[in-house]
């Protein structure tokens, strides 16, 4: 099983964020209410990622995941300008993960205490898959960074079967010989 140093994990996370940011930047003004996933608009999807990013600093500071800390509504999460809302939350999350000992900490997720390395791996896989969701929903660039896809597949295969975070469907059957992006998407219930 491939192992990644804390510096490598941080770099992969930064690149996964940048890849998602590129696709948020490409959303046209009239696409925000389009459907991205069943029951989710493009705005809802980006707001979900904003919420995930907002949680990074408090969770890395040892605070428990508790409801009510951040707004839950899409328009509150995105603010006046969704791109700036995303960028700001993402930047603060990156700063928090870059703190000296951040990746040797334990975070208190709702499913229980979790090593920060598992947390950043999940967040990275999440960003990669949702970058594809966003691109597909907005006729954007569904070609993803191959190294990120390969790493996200490694991370995804470490996730417990029932521990996949929200907005994902049950895994689909896929050939081990399929390309990494097809396997990654299948792991999260998506057909390329």
């Amino acid at each position, binding site marked *: 099983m491939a192992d990644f140093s804390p*510096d490598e994990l*941080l*770099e992969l996370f*930064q690149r996964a964020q940048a890849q998602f*940011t590129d696709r948020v*930047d490409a959303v046209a003004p009239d696409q925000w209410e389009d459907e991205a996933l069943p029951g989710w608009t493009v705005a809802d999807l980006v707001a979900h990622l904003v919420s995930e990013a907002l949680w990074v600093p408090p969770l890395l500071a040892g605070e428990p995941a508790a409801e009510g800390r951040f707004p839950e509504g899409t328009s509150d999460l995105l603010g006046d300008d969704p*791109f*700036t809302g995303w*960028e*700001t939350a993402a*930047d*603060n999350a*990156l*700063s928090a*993960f*870059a*703190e*000296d000992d951040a990746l040797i900490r334990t975070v208190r997720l709702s499913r229980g205490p979790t090593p920060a390395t598992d947390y950043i791996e999940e967040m990275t896989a999440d960003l990669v898959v949702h970058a594809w969701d966003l691109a597909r929903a907005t006729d954007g660039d569904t070609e993803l960074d191959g190294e990120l896809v390969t790493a996200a597949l490694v991370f995804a295969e470490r996730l417990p079967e029932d521990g996949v975070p929200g907005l994902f469907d049950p895994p689909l059957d896929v050939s081990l010989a399929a390309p990494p992006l097809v396997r990654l998407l299948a792991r999260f219930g998506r057909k390329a």
Partner: protein
Amino acid sequence: MSDALDIDEAVFDVVDRIPPGRVSSYGAVGRLIGIGPRRVARALSSGGGAVPWHRVVRADGSAADPVRVRQLELLAGEGVPIRNGRVDMSAVGWPD
């Protein structure tokens, strides 16, 4: 003067205040003037030559690819601590 040039000028004014040996991030500079990190990066890459553009890096202390080698050289020359290609932002981050 257009709004876009006003924003560029505001970025240059902030970056000009970063002292030698200190380093800020695109996001931190943006927060001081109410814009996002990418807008800061765009201002600096299009016309930041007259200000110390090299004192601005990503939030994780890493340098953007096109300028990475030169930027880290310039920062090392100012005594900025760099480890595994990343600036130690907790040591030299600006503003405090």
